[in-house]
């Protein structure tokens, strides 16, 4: 202790206001407010996560529907033209086959 110290004596002689009577009550009030704030913050966070998940819907929901195709009425004569086989001359095909056969035979002869 520094009881004989003039600084200590002067400090002790100075008035210090008394401790407020309701300090314990004030502390409890602050602790309650703090707990409420924390609970509110948690509730807001949970609500935000739930809202985000609901908006996002990771489990899929309905599959994406194909776009509606417009039904177009096509006249029968046009359909015939559209689905008709391409115009091929059967004689031209036979000529081409004969030519290929002859070419192959002549190659075989040369090889012998």
């Amino acid at each position: 202790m520094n009881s004989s110290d003039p600084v200590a004596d002067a400090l002790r002689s100075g008035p210090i206001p008394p401790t407020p009577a309701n300090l314990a009550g004030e502390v409890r009030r602050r602790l309650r407010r703090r707990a409420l704030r924390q609970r509110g913050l948690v509730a807001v966070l949970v609500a935000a996560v739930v809202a985000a998940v609901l908006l996002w819907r990771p489990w899929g929901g309905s599959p994406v529907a194909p776009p509606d195709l417009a039904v177009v009425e096509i006249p029968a004569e046009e359909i015939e033209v559209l689905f008709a086989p391409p115009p091929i001359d059967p004689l031209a095909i036979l000529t081409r086959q004969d030519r290929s056969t002859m070419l192959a035979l002549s190659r075989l002869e040369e090889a012998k």
Partner: protein
Amino acid sequence: MGSNGAIGGASRVDDDLLRRCQAGDDAALGELICGFQDRLFRLAVRVLGDPARAEDAVADAFVAVWSRCRSWRGDAAAATWICRVAYRVVLDHARERRRWWRIFPSAGREPPVPADPAAELANRDRQEHLARRLAEALATLPPEDRALVHLHYYEGQSLAEIAAVLGASRDALKMRLSRARGRLREVLGDGDELL
């Protein structure tokens, strides 16, 4: 109980109370407040220089004690740990105030002027006059040094006890105390009978 024992001294009662706080015992907090409020309030008033701000700081300090009590491992006495937490909270409040001083340089830096000069003249009590002058001089010290001077000279704690609370070495505190005393001498004048 905390208010009667030395800060650094082991107090089983305080240790038990803090352990009960760790377990969430609300009544233990009430007992701790009763035991420590006077000491912490005196420190806060000395550092902050304003009873209203001191009450705010001490209430915040007990909230901090309650919310951080699980970090107390028992390596320091409960009283030391509580005072250390409170000291930091009070310093935070003092720093807040210093920030306000930077914005409004004219506010707060001046030593407190007596509200009524006539009353000041009427008050001829030498000891009160010295105490007032000392309080004015203390207001010019940084908050950390104000706390140090208060704990050493007012609360009568040893440097070793204060070192445990303030988290500084005994030698560093000795140097700071000497510097604070020199600063007080400077403010009060060389011929002052206090120093």
